[in-house]
Structure formats: structure tokens, C-alpha cells
């Protein structure tokens, strides 16, 4: 058999490998251009005390997590018990961003399911969410001491993601 006849077969196999890799990737996870960049500055009213303002700058010097959630978000309910467990470990401050949600509904939700957050702020019109490139709730950002976003988790945080990605990064960043 001529060797040249094997070329199309080889090309086909390359194509198969590319397509197979493509199938394992999740198209709804769009890598954020914000990873490695300073977190967008924001100031927002606290959910529990709207007259008090919280700013991202308040967290400078700390490694912290910003979790985007909402009372209307179904996937957040799956994530919630995992965040409750995570909050018990007191590893890093967990700040909630109640995205496009009425404060009343957000507070009711926290009262019903428990509040894992050190504090939550209200993003009623979704303006902060847009600056953070949020396109689906829940999303979670890991922010370092200098206020730089180091990691973005799209969709519900899983135990696996905490163990294999977030915790090792936190430990590294806290050094």
C-alpha cells in the first residue's frame, strides 16, 4: 500500500481528536477577560442595612470571594449548602452580590435558607454585574490582596471546585 494513501486517514484522525476535545468543553463557560485584572470598583448599599455602603476597596489587603446570587436564581439553591459549609471553615471573607433582586426578596431568601455571607450588597439594576461581566447567576470571583481578580467560577460552586481549585489558590494568595 502506498504511504500517500495514509495521509487522508491521518488528517481525518487529527480532525477527530480536535472534535473530541471540543465535545468535552462547555460552550456556556466563556473565559472572563477580567481574570488577572483589577476588580471593577463598586460601591453598593448593604442588603441588611441599605444606608451603609460597601465598597470593593474595603477588602484591600484581604483575599476574598465575591459570590453573585439572587433569590430568583434556581441554581443558587444548589450552590447554597456548599457555601454554607464553606462559610463554616472561615477561610476567607465571603461577600454576596444580590444581583437584580429586591432587597426584601433577598433577605427573605437568606432567612429561609441561611446566610453564608459575611455581608451581602444589593445590585438592584445589575450595573455592578455588567462591570464584572456577569452573564449567568451564580458566579464567583476570587480576589487577591491587591484587588486583582484571580479566578472566576461560572455556575454553582461545587465541593470539587472548592477543594481542587479555590482552596489551593487561596492558600497560595494568602502567603
Amino acid at each position, binding site marked *: 500500500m502506498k504511504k500517500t494513501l495514509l495521509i487522508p486517514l491521518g488528517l481525518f484522525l487529527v480532525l477527530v481528536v480536535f472534535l473530541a476535545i471540543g465535545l468535552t468543553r462547555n*460552550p456556556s463557560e466563556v473565559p472572563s*477577560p477580567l481574570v488577572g485584572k483589577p476588580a471593577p470598583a463598586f460601591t453598593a448599599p448593604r442588603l441588611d442595612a441599605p444606608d451603609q455602603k460597601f465598597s470593593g476597596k474595603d477588602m484591600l489587603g484581604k483575599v476574598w470571594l465575591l459570590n453573585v446570587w439572587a433569590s430568583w436564581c434556581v441554581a443558587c439553591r444548589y450552590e447554597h449548602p456548599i457555601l454554607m459549609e464553606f462559610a463554616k471553615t472561615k477561610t476567607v471573607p465571603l461577600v454576596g452580590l444580590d444581583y437584580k433582586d429586591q432587597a426584601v426578596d433577598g433577605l427573605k431568601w437568606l432567612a429561609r435558607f441561611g446566610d453564608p455571607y459575611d455581608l451581602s450588597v444589593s445590585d438592584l*439594576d445589575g450595573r455592578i454585574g455588567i462591570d464584572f*461581566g456577569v452573564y449567568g447567576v451564580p458566579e464567583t470571583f476570587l480576589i487577591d490582596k491587591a484587588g486583582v481578580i484571580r479566578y472566576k467560577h461560572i455556575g454553582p460552586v461545587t465541593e470539587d471546585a472548592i477543594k481542587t481549585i479555590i482552596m489551593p489558590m487561596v492558600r497560595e494568595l494568602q502567603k
Partner: protein
Amino acid sequence: VKLNRIPERSLMSGWIAAVIWACLLVVQISPAALANVAVPLADDPVVERRLIVISEELRCLVCQNESLAGSRADLALDLRREIRTLIKGGKTDAEILDFMVSRYGDFVLYRPPVKPITWALWFGPFLLLIGAVVVLVRMVRKGQRNEVTPVLDAAQRARAQALLKDSERPS
């Protein structure tokens, strides 16, 4: 006559019910419909036209096969509002696209920018085409060369010729 009257009456009451229902529906639906659809259209038509041109270039990240102009997702609504504000703030189209890319990445653009990471995407098809043409030309040339090599040897050729001459004679 008696038999006829009953269906007539039920037909009438059916009509009345339908009219009442229609009135109720109109009363209930129209304020909501006006609030959702009419308000954006009442804005500056020049701004709206630019908004449509820009947002057709952008992907809605919630439903990825829809443009930002066509999507009815909540986020698309918010982003259109955001773009409208930027347009009114005097931003250029390029600045508005930058605003979107800096938040959501190149993926929001339906036309990916030409840069090293997208070279394969932009130029790959042309490379494949050139490669295919080269292969095709080679194969055709090889085919032509093969044709020149005689299929019959001298003796076979002479016999074939003789047979052909035979068949030309009228029998």
C-alpha cells in the same frame, strides 16, 4: 320552532361571553404590553438605529446563538440599555465594542478580531484551499504523465490496427 330557539340563545350567550372575554383581555394585556414594547421605541430614533447596528455585531451570552439586538433575555435588555446610555454619552462605536469586550471577552463579537490567537481561524481556510489546489494540480499532472506510457506493446498495437482495418471494409 321551539327546537330552534334553544341553540340560538346559546349561540347568542356564547357571543356575548366571547366579547366580554375579549374586552377583559384587552384591558388586562395592553398596559403591560405598552410598558414592555412601546417605551424603548419612543426614544430618539437615531440612537435606536445605532443601537441596532452595534448590538447586531454582539452575541448575547445567555442565548449564544442570538445577537444582542434579537435577544429577549434579561441581560440583553440590560446591555442594550447600557449601550443606549453610552451612545447618548457620545461614545464611538469602537469605544462601545471595547466596553463589551473588556467585560465579556472577544466571544461577544460575532466578528473575531485578527490577532495571533485567531490567525488559524482567519487564515486557516485559505491555507487549506492552497494546499488542496497544490495536491489537485500534482494529481492531475501525474495522471497526464501516466497517459503517455503506452498500454499496448508494438505487437498488440499492430494487431489492433489490423482488426480496425478489417472492420472498416464493407462486408
